[in-house]
């Protein structure tokens, strides 16, 4: 039977672990609220933007003069994967799920004879992808120092991506991030951002109205497409931030509950062995007295 003192130490160590996980859960809950607000605040912009862009894309898309960001380079040989993950761990399967999705995508493209390049945002994804795709990693964006995600961060990443595109480094770019559904479910997403794809906003008023364009449709499109990349990356980053906190919150909730269970069973074991020691002592005293 385990030593009484050992058990006692064990219990107190699990207790302090529980305190830490509980605190982390509460911090994650507070951060989640903020992240969710930020994600919601960015939605009107992204929605309006996409509505206008899909209208524009539909009217200009067919022509030969359409910008490359919209029509593509005419090939899909070189694939760029932008994998966005978190900077910190202890958030359950959050990073693993995104990486799994990206890995499957990369393997499929490799099997089809394409060239795969990977740009990572966030340390955790990089660490995981380094094992299988070390040769394919072309860059990394570090957001460790960023306290509060701003549009400028997304612009920085977008600029990097666009410079590579202009340099002819890749043909198709796909963004990987987790979509925040609720605290317990975050769904990894793959979204193609170059060449741009716009979901049809349906029979919205945008499609029906004939707009005057100032300057020209082409000029507006050329101006807006790079911004569209930044917008897509920004909303991806925000969704990811909310997902990360949600995943961490539920992971820490589980950990707290497990620690509680463990403390319970350890306490029972502790009491049992304490009782056994007392019983033993009594037997010794009684048998000693009887022997006299």
């Amino acid at each position, binding site marked *: 039977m385990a030593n009484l003192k050992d058990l006692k130490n064990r219990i107190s160590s699990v207790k302090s672990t529980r305190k830490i996980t509980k605190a982390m859960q509460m911090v994650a809950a507070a951060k989640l609220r903020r992240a969710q607000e*930020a994600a919601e*605040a*960015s939605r*009107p*912009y*992204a929605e*309006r*933007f996409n509505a*206008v862009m899909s209208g*524009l894309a539909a009217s200009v898309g067919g022509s030969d003069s359409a910008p490359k960001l919209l029509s593509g380079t005419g090939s899909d040989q070189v694939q760029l994967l932008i994998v966005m993950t978190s900077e910190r761990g202890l958030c359950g399967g959050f990073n693993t799920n995104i990486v799994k999705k990206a890995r499957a995508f990369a393997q499929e493209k490799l099997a089809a004879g394409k060239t795969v390049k990977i740009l990572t945002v966030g340390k955790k994804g990089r660490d995981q992808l380094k094992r299988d795709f070390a040769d394919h990693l072309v860059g990394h964006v570090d957001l460790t120092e960023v306290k509060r995600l*701003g*549009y400028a961060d*997304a612009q920085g990443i977008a600029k990097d991506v666009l410079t590579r595109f202009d340099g002819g480094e890749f043909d198709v770019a796909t963004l990987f991030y987790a979509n925040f559904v609720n605290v317990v479910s975050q769904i990894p997403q793959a979204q193609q951002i170059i060449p741009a794809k716009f979901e049809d906003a349906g029979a919205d*008023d*945008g499609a029906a*109205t*004939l*707009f*005057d*364009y*100032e*300057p020209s449709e082409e*000029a*507006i499109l050329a*101006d*807006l497409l790079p*911004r569209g990349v*930044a*917008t897509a990356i*920004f909303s991806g980053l925000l969704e990811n931030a909310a997902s990360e906190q949600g995943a961490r919150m539920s992971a820490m909730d589980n950990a707290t509950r497990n620690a509680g269970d463990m403390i319970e069973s350890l306490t029972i074991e502790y009491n049992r062995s304490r009782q056994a020691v007392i019983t033993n002592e009594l037997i010794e005293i009684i048998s000693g007295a009887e022997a006299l």
Partner: protein
Amino acid sequence: MADTMQFDLVSPERRLASLQVTSVQIPGADGDMTAMEGHAPTITTLRPGVLSVDGPEGTSDYVVTGGFAEITAKGVSVLAERAVPKGDMTQAHLDEMMEEARTMYSNAKEAFENEPGPVDDAAKLLSDMVAMGDHMGLTAKQ
């Protein structure tokens, strides 16, 4: 009031304004334009400048850079990459924006030596910034 329309100003980070207005003066890429109720549907890109909104509750001004404005039958939505209420605009803000425009200009000059297009665009952006600063009584550092 019958002659008002819906006006929305959104930046990627948040929604700055959503209200009923009588007219909106937009710093369009091809020149300022004022949109009132019943304006023809138009989409225009923005140059850095001051967006001024007239409504039943008075006038409010915003400094906007980059983005576009969409005028529809229902109202005006302005999507600006950066939008700051004019009152909050400080010299520091302007300096930061000037700095960005200047880097862009020098980058464009390097990258497109033989193509005047992008360099001219960047130069225009820079001069727009200066003009905007003058307009607001702030001096753009050269």
